[in-house]
């Protein structure tokens, strides 16, 4: 037991003191924020100025409506740009304000002009506009044919046909303009049309009537899933590296001449897990103090229930011990770090699969897919945590998932200890799968 603690202590102290740990602890949250928010922003922000469109209105009735729909309400267009990058757009308080901003951000703004035929032929005007698009003083043009009200297809030409946001905005605007025009022609007056078309903003509430966690909840869930995924991967790799180092440098030989292989393996696994927990502890403290400090100001961090912290630690440990045990086995089977990387690939894929499944689970946390994914021990650390945060499943499901995890970990360690003991002393070549199976049977 004393020797086991010596191994744990060495593994812990050496790592926590390392420069890498300090850097990772500081940069980790920034990177996480980056991974969560940057893609959302990148996808949303339209760079450059407003989209310039020309409209040829052959009906003579629709230009005004379409232009108005495209340009939207003037008041929302002149808003200040969205907050700084550290602050995800989802974290501001008023959901309506946010929705408008997001809309504006995503679809950009439009500058619309009318191109009149003035006696020229349609083709003439079209080719003139096309050359303006080519020379980049116009981004695209729309032709509303004379019989559009009776179903004739409009025409939309644009430089960038891949810009789906612009396309859908144009489509919606024409549709709405057409609808209003048709209502007008069927005898409904303008005021009524406006009233009938008043848009609503959906304000999601949960079944109990509480204000929904909404977008901030999405970021929280995604962030926690990502955090588990990345920490399991990172700390699993640490175990792999540590085991390969001991095998490569033959330190294993001395270690095995001083203690049994099982407490040695456990010492490594537990030592590294304590490093991970220390890091997360630092993050948790930083997060809570930042929340407290920000309390009352307009920025607020998402609220995390204390129980979520507990579940997070439990499911992290489950994931860590499952995957790190795999990594320890892989490390004892190979001779070099490169070989280790190759052999560990299927394990990484399994973990990645769990991470991608979590997207589906966020959307429908009570589907049977979500249920089975959160019972399967290799996916559960991510998927069950995601379920807990989105829509907490019954306690028995959480406990069952943890129970399956514990049984899996114990089983894996039993097998791993056997492979580890023999593998660590075998030099010169990578162990083959039949060999490994023989070690498990014989030990």
């Amino acid at each position, binding site marked *: 037991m004393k020797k086991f603690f010596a*191994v744990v*202590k*060495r593994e812990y102290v050496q790592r926590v003191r390392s420069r890498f740990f300090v850097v990772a602890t500081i940069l980790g949250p920034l990177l996480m924020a980056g991974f969560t928010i940057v893609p959302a922003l990148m996808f949303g922000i339209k760079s450059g100025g407003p989209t310039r469109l020309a409209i040829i209105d052959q009906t003579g009735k629709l230009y005004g409506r379409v232009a108005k729909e495209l340009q939207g309400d003037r008041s929302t267009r002149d808003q200040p740009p969205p907050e700084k990058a550290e602050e995800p757009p989802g974290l501001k308080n008023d959901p309506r304000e946010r929705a408008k901003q997001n809309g504006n951000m995503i679809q950009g703004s439009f500058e619309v002009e009318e191109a009149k035929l003035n006696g020229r032929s349609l083709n003439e005007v079209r080719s003139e506009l096309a050359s303006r698009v080519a020379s980049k003083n116009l981004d695209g043009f729309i032709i509303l044919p004379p019989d559009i009200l009776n179903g004739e297809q409009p025409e939309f030409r644009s430089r960038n046909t891949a810009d789906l946001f612009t396309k859908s905005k144009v489509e919606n605007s024409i549709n709405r303009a057409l609808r209003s025009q048709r209502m007008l022609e069927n005898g409904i007056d303008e005021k009524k049309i406006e009233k009938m078309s008043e848009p609503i903003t959906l304000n999601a509430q949960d079944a109990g009537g509480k204000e929904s966690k909404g977008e901030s909840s999405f970021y929280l869930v995604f962030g926690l899933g990502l955090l588990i995924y990345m920490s399991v991967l990172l700390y699993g790799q640490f175990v792999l590296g540590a085991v390969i*180092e001991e095998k490569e440098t033959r330190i294993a*030989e*001395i270690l095995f*001449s*001083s203690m*049994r292989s099982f407490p040695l393996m456990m010492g490594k696994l537990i030592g590294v897990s304590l490093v991970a927990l220390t890091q997360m502890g630092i993050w948790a403290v930083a997060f809570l103090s930042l929340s407290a400090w920000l309390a009352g100001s307009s920025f607020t961090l998402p609220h995390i229930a204390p129980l979520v912290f507990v579940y997070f630690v439990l499911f992290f440990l489950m994931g860590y011990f499952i995957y790190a045990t795999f990594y320890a086995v892989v490390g004892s089977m190979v001779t070099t770090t490169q070989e280790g990387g190759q052999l560990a690939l299927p394990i990484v894929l399994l973990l990645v699969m769990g991470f991608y499944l979590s997207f589906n689970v966020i959307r429908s946390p009570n589907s049977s897919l979500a249920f089975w994914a959160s019972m399967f021990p290799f996916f559960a650390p991510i998927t069950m945590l995601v379920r807990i945060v989105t829509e907490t499943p019954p306690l028995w499901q959480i406990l069952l998932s943890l129970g399956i995890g514990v049984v899996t970990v114990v089983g894996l360690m039993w097998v791993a200890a056997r492979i580890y003991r023999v593998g660590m*002393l075998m030099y010169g070549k990578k162990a083959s799968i039949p060999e490994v199976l023989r070690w498990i049977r014989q030990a």
Partner: protein
Amino acid sequence: MDETRPTLILDHVSKSFGDFVAVRDLSLQVRRGRIFGLIGPNGAGKTTTIRMIVNITVPDSGRVELFGQPMSTALQDRIGYLPEERGLYKRMKVGEQLRFFAELKDVKGKEADARIDKWLAKLQLTDWKQKKTKDLSKGMQQKVQFITSVIHEPDLLILDEPFSGLDPVNVEVMKDTILEQKAANKTIILSTHQMEIAEKLCDDVCMINRSRKVLDGKLRELRRSESRNAVALRCEGNDGILKDPALVLNVRQVGDDLEVLLAEGVSPQILLKRLVDADTVVTKFELVEPSLHDIFIAKVKETS
């Protein structure tokens, strides 16, 4: 513990890996306070034998007894082991590294620190205590590794090729250190290919070839029994006596000496008497004992 009982007994020990027999029916005894040489070519089974002695692997059959008890994990703390393939944590500081290995052998606290400082001073490594291991030269790393094997003052010290990679000065330091351990009544097993060193240090040897023991015993007795009845001779005149086939089988020049192989039944005394009777000036007359190297080569050829 019974003083006369051997420190280590291997009793008909065998170990195979799959179809490959690494050690076959090996029996040997290592006595207390002596240096025991384990000698054999590469792949003979030395490392496997040592691994069974330090309880890394368990024999398929046979018995390992250490300090009068069957081999067990508890006994491991009384063994010091310097493996042939050295292994240290490259990124750890020398002092911390030694501290860790001391703890693995159940030596802790001030006691461990004192011993570490003593050994570092002894092997002239004190200035390197706070340096990372990877910044040390190979020879220095080797000395650090040696300290890890003696830090817990083991009763049995197993050294696998302890001199490889050392410069001549450090070879001497290492030799002296090993002899000090012997003087302190520790038992030492020395595994090496370097016959000259084994010859100078070992009291007993055991030769292994192709997983079997080919020879063992006290070094002095071995050399005597393997003696080929030869004499190293330096003299002036009377070459005729050396050409007498009833007396001499063969003469060859070895350096300044003549190595004279005597015929069967002829003792060195007879040759000396003949030479003296003929008034030959004899400046050197010495019985030639075969070197360990010669015995080793002869035995390996015999068993291969």
